[in-house]
């Protein structure tokens, strides 16, 4: 079937199989940051945005993205780098495998939450699993990053 969509701002037209998951499709277009972690809509590794909303690309069919704008980490390099510095400062990175999906959801949260408590942050990020760190380092990094984005100090 024919689809037409935008990946990181670039218009793409293709003929795809109707059962292609969006995950496979964006990877075939070179967006290798998008990874398959669990296969059961649980781990958050495959997170990307459709029209600015974070979704699980393993769960959405590519056909559903027809006519929409897709954003992956490849399209948010500057912001990702900025957040990466907060992660490094807290020593929150370990193997790094979960990072792309995690960062996509953090950056979505920064756009969405007008006010935030510790609980709000945890609630928003609970769908991103990380097997290495126990989350505390990441949490400190996210909080510092949010404060910075809301006009606080770096």
């Amino acid at each position: 079937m024919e689809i037409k969509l935008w990946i990181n701002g670039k218009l793409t037209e293709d003929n795809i199989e109707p059962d292609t998951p969006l995950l496979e499709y964006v990877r075939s277009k070179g967006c290798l940051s998008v990874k398959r972690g669990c296969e059961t809509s649980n781990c958050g590794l495959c997170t990307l945005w459709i029209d600015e909303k974070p979704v699980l690309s393993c769960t959405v069919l590519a056909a559903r993205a027809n006519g929409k704008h897709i954003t992956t980490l490849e399209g948010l390099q500057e912001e990702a780098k900025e957040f990466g510095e907060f992660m490094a400062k807290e020593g929150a990175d370990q193997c790094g495998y979960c990072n792309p999906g995690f960062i996509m959801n953090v950056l979505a949260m920064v756009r969405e939450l007008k006010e935030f408590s510790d609980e709000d942050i945890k609630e928003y990020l609970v769908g991103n699993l990380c097997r290495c760190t126990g989350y505390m380092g990441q949490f400190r990094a996210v909080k510092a990053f949010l404060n910075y984005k809301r006009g606080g100090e770096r």
Partner: protein
Amino acid sequence: MLTIKEYVSVESLEEAYKLNQNVNNVILGGTGWLKLQNRNIVKAIDLSKLGLDKIEEDEEKYTIGCMVTLRDIEKNVSLNEYTNNALKNSLKDIVGVQFRNCVTIGGSIYSRFGFSDILTSLLTLDTYVEMYKGGIIPLKDFVNMPYDKDILVRIIIKKDGRKVGYSAFRNQATNFPVITCGVTITENKKVYAVIGARPYKAKVVEDNENILGEFSEENIEKFAKYVSENLKFDSNMRASGEYRKRLTEVFVKRTLKKLMEEK
């Protein structure tokens, strides 16, 4: 694995209904559950073009299109105010934000999953389903109807001034619930509880014996026990039936008490 031969984005409900009569065709919700199954679908029917992704409100009711996502409902300010966050509370622990941005209310409710948090919380409200051919049916009747090839078009919640509360128990955050518990106090002070994940589908238990004619601590405990004794519980990999029964008593009590404190 899910295989799909053909993908049809329909122009009308009539077209969708006709296609859906073939057993090898299926209407797509958010594909959260469908993609975990081994299914060979000939035609996948997508309702995305029909404008059913909106929550509308007038003085009497909320109307929620079947393609509205769970996250849209969770974020709807008016629904949260009306339900004192009970709907939101029944949604916020379902996997994660990204998952709730994918899956649709139509898919969730049509499927009538035993583990469904949202089926439980919607049963606490005066909720109806609008079926394309079957018309408007109270949700508590729809729950027990056999699966057919009709299309769930909208969810309707009538505003009648009742108070509702919701709670659930999970072994781990974001996992399926072990028990779900909704409590309603209607405007004329009638009380009922809704218990799901027993692991059967959510079911309404009314206070037929008027135990809560007077809201005392003792009567609340009696009612909680009455609810747990009037339901069937069973075991699965998450918990035993006996454990669920005990949890039900505790959760009905807590949820009802909290609801009354919020007066």
